[in-house]
């Protein structure tokens, strides 16, 4: 009997295994509220196991159409997402909102361009996507392997000028999109689903990990977090990490950016180099964050440079 079981396990293993070993994202949408879903990204740096799928992708289903929030890191990822959405609803995907230009949120755009989808993105961020996209794509290919980025391209596309805030109707479902300029990036979009009172805030909020700051204006960003905190919402979907229901959970993002900004400003005034700060070891404050070390090493020199020769 035991031997039979073992044989069975082996047979199952070898039959199932190929689907794990290919570049699959194993996406499972989490239900936020009725007809509001989110794919929560891996809480890691981009690596050759997660294929860059480290940020959250959401979708909202109305009576007539569907809106998707963020395109994800690649063509393949976006294809997987679209397939799963189809299994939920036959309605057409009418809108894709890209919260900002960073690769893990925008590189799936090329997949949506093959469909009749209107892409909504802040003009400043579209510019950055086109300007730096191919460079980051090349770096990502080098980093985690070409196979993750088959068919992923950086294309320009027909873009309709918008006046923010933008109101959309998915069919008995009103959506409001607001623009937050020069905060975490040059133009972050926040998407509100009114029925469920769900707010998709992109990378203005990170949950469960250290926030990244390469294109941030930290002063504005802090104010935006306060603004978001004052709004009414039941569910808040951060750019990275789990669904937030409690306003206290916005604090770690704010505390981190305050701390790294203060450290960089002090360093630029006293002439201390990032290297010398690293040499002292990680400050206790940041140790409680996931991906603290990686983010600290990557972001602090960028920020000090920015302040140093201003």
């Amino acid at each position, binding site marked *: 009997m035991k031997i039979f079981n073992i044989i069975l396990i082996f047979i199952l293993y070898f039959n199932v295994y190929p689907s794990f070993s290919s570049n699959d994202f194993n996406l499972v949408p989490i239900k936020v509220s009725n007809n509001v879903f989110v794919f929560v990204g891996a809480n890691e740096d981009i690596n050759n196991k997660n294929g860059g799928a480290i940020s959250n992708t959401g979708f909202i289903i109305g009576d007539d159409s569907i809106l998707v929030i963020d395109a994800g890191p690649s063509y393949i990822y976006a294809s997987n997402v679209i397939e799963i959405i189809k299994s939920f609803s036959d309605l057409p995907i009418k809108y894709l909102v890209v919260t900002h230009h960073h690769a893990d949120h925008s590189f799936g755009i090329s997949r949506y361009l093959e469909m009749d989808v209107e892409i909504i993105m802040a003009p400043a961020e579209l510019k950055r996507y086109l300007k730096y996209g191919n*460079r980051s*794509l*090349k770096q990502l290919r080098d*980093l985690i392997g070409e196979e993750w980025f088959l068919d992923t391209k950086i294309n320009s596309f027909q873009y309709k000028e918008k006046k923010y805030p933008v109101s959309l109707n998915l069919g008995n479902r009103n959506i409001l999109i607001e623009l937050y300029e020069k905060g975490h990036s040059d133009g972050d979009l926040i998407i509100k689903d009114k029925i469920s009172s769900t707010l998709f805030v992109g990378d203005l909020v990170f949950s469960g990990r250290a926030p990244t700051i390469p294109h941030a204006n930290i002063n504005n960003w802090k104010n935006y977090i306060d603004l978001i905190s004052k709004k009414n919402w039941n569910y808040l979907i951060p750019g990275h990490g789990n669904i937030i229901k409690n306003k206290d959970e916005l604090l770690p993002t704010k505390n981190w950016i305050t701390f790294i900004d203060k450290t960089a400003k002090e360093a630029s005034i006293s*002439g201390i180099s990032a*290297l010398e700060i*690293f040499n002292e070891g990680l400050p206790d404050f940041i140790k409680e964050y996931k991906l603290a070390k990686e983010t600290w*090493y990557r972001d602090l020199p960028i920020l000090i440079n920015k302040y140093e*020769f201003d």
Partner: protein
Amino acid sequence: MYWEKFLIKYILFICVFIYSGVTLSGPFSDFKAGAELSEELSSSPTAKRNTPNSDSLVQSIDALNPKNSSVWRELQDNLLGNDANVLFVDDIKLIMQDYIEEAHKVPLIVTLPKRLHNFKNFILIIENNPIQQAMSIRPYRLIESLGMNIRLEDDSPVRAAVQGDNGIWYVGSKMAFVASVGGCSTPACDPSVEVCETGTIGKIAIKQYEREAGAERIKLKVTHPMETGFVTDLQGEIIPEYFVKNIHVDDNKGAIADITTFAALSSDPVILLDLPKKGQSVRVHVKDSLGLEFFSYDSNTM
């Protein structure tokens, strides 16, 4: 009991064997440069294939040992002199990250022990670069530590050779691993895929910071492409080498240092100098490989 005795004998034998190997082994037998890696390298899981891990420590101790280097002997003869007296030491500290994401611009700080503050010559050597010498400095004053940003073509030992006033060259070493190769041979900005921004060539920025007990830190930045001559443009033509050759630094008390630079420094090179005494109105005079001169001050009033 028998096994214990055997074990002790065995350990003793191994110790003696290793010891004799160290003491009897050729010109670099004095090699003891700290190959210590920071917590970052020994613990950080990164995305790179062949990720640095705890094995990297062994690997790096190995790579740092000049006996194992196929290029060091020649480099030493060429740069430090055929009959140079060379000592590998661990009190010249090279502070840089172990694992480097952006190999076009790698910050590095070298701190010197007190006995070498009056050094005569300083050469920074990157073994596995196509341009192996990044810079050299001839100082006119005491210098406590210095910094620069460099290019790394590949994983490489980085060595700071410092000549004391006794004529002996003291060498401190550090191993650096890069995420993607090509700090010298690939464009930092790739015009085939992006719009590049270039600053005004020859713009000089100087910053002076006060340190403890009247000491000072000088940071200077020269806007310059520092072309290596190994990068090709969109048409496949080689972009000719074009770099800053000389940086002369002085203040109201006279000359501070003469710095000879090469394209193994990154574009828009930054130089950092820690002096024990603060001076006033630091000035910089730069010459590049096309013979252009740049001044941080009005050169006509000289």
